[in-house]
């Protein structure tokens, strides 16, 4: 296998790394590569921070291993190579009546990346996490091939779901898909006036897919105002795809300056009529992956890149979440994209992010003052008994993360067995010293 020197970044483009990257196109090359040089697997680098980086080391880019290996249309059981993207998968199976049970907000995430972060979707409160629908994973550990399922090699399976690639490279996965009546959703959007109303609306929603978009710049009486989106899969045809656009180069620094952000947010909110709101039918990809239509939108944040802060706090910590939101709004540093959602308890691994509660995700351009703000948010989240999402993180502290993830010790023990030499460590696991118990 040839190694290519590649300069990589996470989606937030703050951390950078130069690595020797292999990109196998078939299983025999993958096993030969790992037998020779065990190295962490990476997907499309849609995690924001340094989870997908291994600076001055080796990495195995899995994106060329992207085939569906079997698909039973009667049972919805599908096996695929780990580099297949969740969007491509949905595109193939939805017209045949099946949809991945859990999809994150980008269709470009690979199945391997979805498993390694145990991702959640807009239906987490009803469907749980991605890993809860994985029937088996085939892991490559150096020259060994190991299959883990929820019943066989159980703790290896739990260490792998949400396990940041630390148990070896996932070569293929078997998934249980869920039936879908068509390729569209019935989407209802309505305005929410303030934070308290938002929590009430999230608690009261009966829909399968629920997500709140909040204006993280609004303060005072408007704090937490936004748009609630509720959707159900429904029978129906697919309206034609709107054209995708590409961000051709890094935007200048002012593109997402506070006044621009305020304008954007006001417009986003304003397009929904007050009261009943509006209802429309949307395609699966438009609804699940709204940002994928603009290729490389992360470049809108300019050269310095951006951070996403995502935390979850327990249901009884609404006050703490409000405090976090106040901090964010008053810092005047946030970007248009803030998401509020209620999560259920579903999780598949020791290091899975979800817990029953409310999750908030906010983007911040990497400007001066951001690190201090995010430090403070990290503390507020920890005090509330919540946790930060490692798929988004670039700045957290290892000690805090270990305190937030109560099964971290079990994960350390299991990854030590799977990878005694630390061959699958990444910049993130080193930064947070995640592979050691304290």
């Amino acid at each position: 296998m040839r190694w290519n020197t590649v300069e990589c970044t996470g989606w937030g483009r703050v951390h950078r790394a130069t690595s020797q990257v292999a990109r196998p196109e078939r299983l025999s090359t993958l096993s030969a590569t790992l037998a020779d040089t065990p190295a962490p697997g990476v997907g499309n680098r849609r995690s924001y921070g340094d989870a997908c980086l291994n600076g001055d080391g080796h990495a195995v880019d899995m994106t060329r291993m992207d085939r569906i290996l079997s698909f039973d249309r009667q049972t919805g059981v599908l096996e695929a190579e780990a580099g297949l993207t969740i969007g491509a998968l949905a595109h193939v199976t939805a017209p045949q009546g099946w949809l991945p049970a859990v999809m994150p907000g980008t269709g470009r995430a690979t199945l391997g990346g979805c498993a390694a972060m145990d991702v959640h979707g807009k239906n987490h409160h009803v469907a749980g996490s991605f890993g809860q629908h994985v029937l088996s994973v085939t892991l490559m550990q150096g020259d060994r091939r190991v299959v883990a399922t929820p019943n066989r090699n159980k703790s290896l399976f739990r260490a792998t779901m949400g396990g940041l690639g630390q148990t070896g490279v996932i070569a293929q996965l078997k998934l249980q898909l869920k039936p879908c009546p068509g390729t569209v959703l019935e989407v209802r959007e309505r305005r929410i006036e303030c934070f308290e109303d938002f929590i009430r609306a999230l608690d009261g929603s009966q829909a399968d897919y629920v997500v709140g978009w909040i204006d993280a710049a609004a303060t005072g009486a408007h704090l937490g105002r936004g748009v609630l989106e509720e959707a159900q899969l429904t029978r129906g045809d697919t309206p034609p795809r709107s054209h995708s656009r590409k961000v051709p180069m890094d935007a200048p620094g002012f593109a997402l300056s506070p006044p621009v952000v305020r304008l954007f947010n006001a417009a986003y909110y304003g397009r929904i009529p007050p009261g009943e709101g509006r209802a429309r039918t949307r395609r699966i990809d438009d609804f699940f992956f709204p940002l994928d239509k603009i290729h490389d939108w992360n470049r809108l944040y300019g050269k310095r890149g951006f951070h996403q802060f995502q935390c979850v706090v327990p249901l009884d910590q609404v006050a703490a979440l409000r405090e976090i939101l106040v901090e964010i709004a008053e810092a005047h540093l946030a970007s248009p994209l803030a998401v509020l959602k209620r999560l259920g308890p579903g999780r598949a691994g020791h290091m899975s992010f979800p817990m029953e509660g409310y999750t908030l995700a906010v983007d911040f351009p990497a400007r001066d003052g951001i690190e201090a703000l995010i430090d403070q948010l990290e503390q507020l989240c920890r005090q509330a008994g919540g946790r930060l999402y490692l798929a988004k993180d670039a700045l957290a502290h290892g000690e805090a993360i270990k305190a937030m993830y109560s099964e971290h010790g079990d994960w350390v023990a299991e990854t030590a067995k799977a990878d005694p030499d630390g061959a699958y460590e990444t910049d993130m696991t080193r930064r947070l010293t995640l592979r050691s118990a304290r």
Partner: protein
Amino acid sequence: MSDSHTWIILGATSSMARAFARRVSAEGATVLLAGRDMEDMRKTAADLVARGGRAEALPFDARTPSGFDALVERGRTEPGVLNAAVFVGSMPEQSAIDADPGLIDGTVRDNFTGPAHLLHMLAPEIEARGAGTIVGVGSVAGDRGRVGNYVYGAAKAGFATYLSGLRNRLNRAGGHVITVKPGFVDTAMTWGIEGMFLVASPDAVARDILRAAAKGRNVIYTPFFWRWIMLIIRLIPEPVFKKLSI
């Protein structure tokens, strides 16, 4: 497509071939994947079937003509229009060839004589059916012998000349031949090789080939601008060219 189409894809483990197979399969063609790594091609076939297509993996080694009969026979059993696309090729480093000139034969086999042999066996069937397209993937490297890559280039040049003659022949019988000259493509062959620029994705090449097929083009460069780059390179007079290392 009113007639049913079948594509025999030679060198089916190449990522360009895989992208091409997905595209013709999505258009409704039956795909016969031919190559050396059966385990891998069975996965590509499974993928096409999962996507709603018809596909099968068959053994083909360009250096073993004794196996060609079975493949051609299998192709003949498919009704409708029979097409073939050649992605077979190998590119040992020039330095390896310089150290072991014995590698020249294999390079010529893989890039030229092996595929030509097979296409020659298929040609009568295309003539008999009065239709069928052959796609032959050569390379811009075949347009001029360069110090860094001239054995591979020579094999591709031989293949291009062969395709030109085959085009001339099949044209009389309703068949068509497209010579494809990719520039740099982002595949396993070029991964990690230094000096790559303007690299195209395998799927962009596959798309260009199918567009060219629909338009009945004869020789295409992909991406298109390589036509102009190669024009300039071919225009450099030999007394100058021999001193260059490009």
